[in-house]
């Protein structure tokens, strides 16, 4: 799954969706994950990078990550047709 191209992401973790005019603020961890998504990384790659950089166990990461992805989907920021 990929982030929609039009989504604007700033370094501070501010997101703007120009198709709806909505904006969001992310905490630093979410901002990092979103930037990895933006770079085209898949779930496995993101998991590896985050778990290497931070002291987090696998189940905690997966639960939080899936919740975050669900929220992105809820706000229509994910390209649905490329889901795999």
């Amino acid at each position, binding site marked *: 799954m990929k982030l929609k191209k*039009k989504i*604007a992401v700033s370094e501070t973790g501010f997101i*703007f969706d*120009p*198709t*709806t*005019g909505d904006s969001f603020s992310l905490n630093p961890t979410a901002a990092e994950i979103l930037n990895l998504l933006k770079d085209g990384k898949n779930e496995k790659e993101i998991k590896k990078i985050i778990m290497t950089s931070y002291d987090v166990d696998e189940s905690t990461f997966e639960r939080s990550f899936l919740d975050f992805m669900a929220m992105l989907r809820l706000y229509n920021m994910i390209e649905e047709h490329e889901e795999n």
Partner: protein
Amino acid sequence: MKKTKITVAVSGLNNTDNPGPGIPVIRALRESEVFDVRIIGLAYENLEPGIYMHNVVDKVYQVPYPSIGSDKLLQRLSYIHSIEKIDVLIPNFDAELYSFISFENKLNEMGIGTWLPTMEQFEERHKTKLPEFGKKYGVHVPHSRPINSISEIDSLTPEFSYPLLVKGKFYDAYVAFNPEQVALYFNKIATKWGVPIIIQQFIRGTEVNVIALGDGKGNTIGAVPMRKQYITDKGKAWGGITLDDQDMLDLCHKILKKTKWRGGMELELIKTFDNKYYLIEINPRIPAWVYLAVGAGQNLPEAMVKLALGRKVKPFTTYESGKMFIRYSWDMIVDLKEFEQLSTNGEL
């Protein structure tokens, strides 16, 4: 390059609970790269703020309400024109458009340029005829029906389900959750704008708008979509943001192409949660938030003046999304002498 001097008459100088587009239009024209504009304000009431904004409006004339009769209005305009030599006239009130459209030919004969929808275009997009418009042009439109009396309210169900919208023929719209509320709003609106009152199906979703300018031949000269971010209790935008929404623009192009729309217009749409667009209203004039379009890169009032003067205009193809406007009002201090002068002489 040297600018062409022209005189433009503008109405809609009001800024109460229903802000007029006059001042934003003038701001846009002042920023024109090709015109050096002298602005003649046309005022219906003595307390329209634009009257006293001397840095914005060069000269003001009071004009009679259209309800008094088109003849009186045309007569007054002839007088003003004899003094000011108006090049272009831009009406901005829904309530005055019918009059200006009906004697547009006479204005043009006097040498006053206009860029207004045709009477046919004006009439067929009317709130009372929106369902036919939707069918004819293949546009989703909420079900609606005009009513002329309170006795018709009981027969609204099961044709409509609650909540529904109660709309005035020119302005005002309220959401009603039961027949008692419909009656309340009916009386409120009828007192102000008369009948018919339009009952419209309530569509759940996000309210979005497009400002557009048509060349009368089916081409879109400019179009900028926006979402209201702060809405007053009258449904007016007090803040908004431009959107990057190709589907909305495509719908706009489709409507302008099929209707061969001439002049400025505002599409009011509801975007449902499954990304469907319902057209809830077409305002046949430039909306009060036009300056947002200017800020996003499309000076539509300037383009409209060019069209009115018979000039060729290259269509805008881009605008900047993510541009916001936030409306602000300030108290302007006016000396009683100015108010007196306008009240007494009919000009300032």
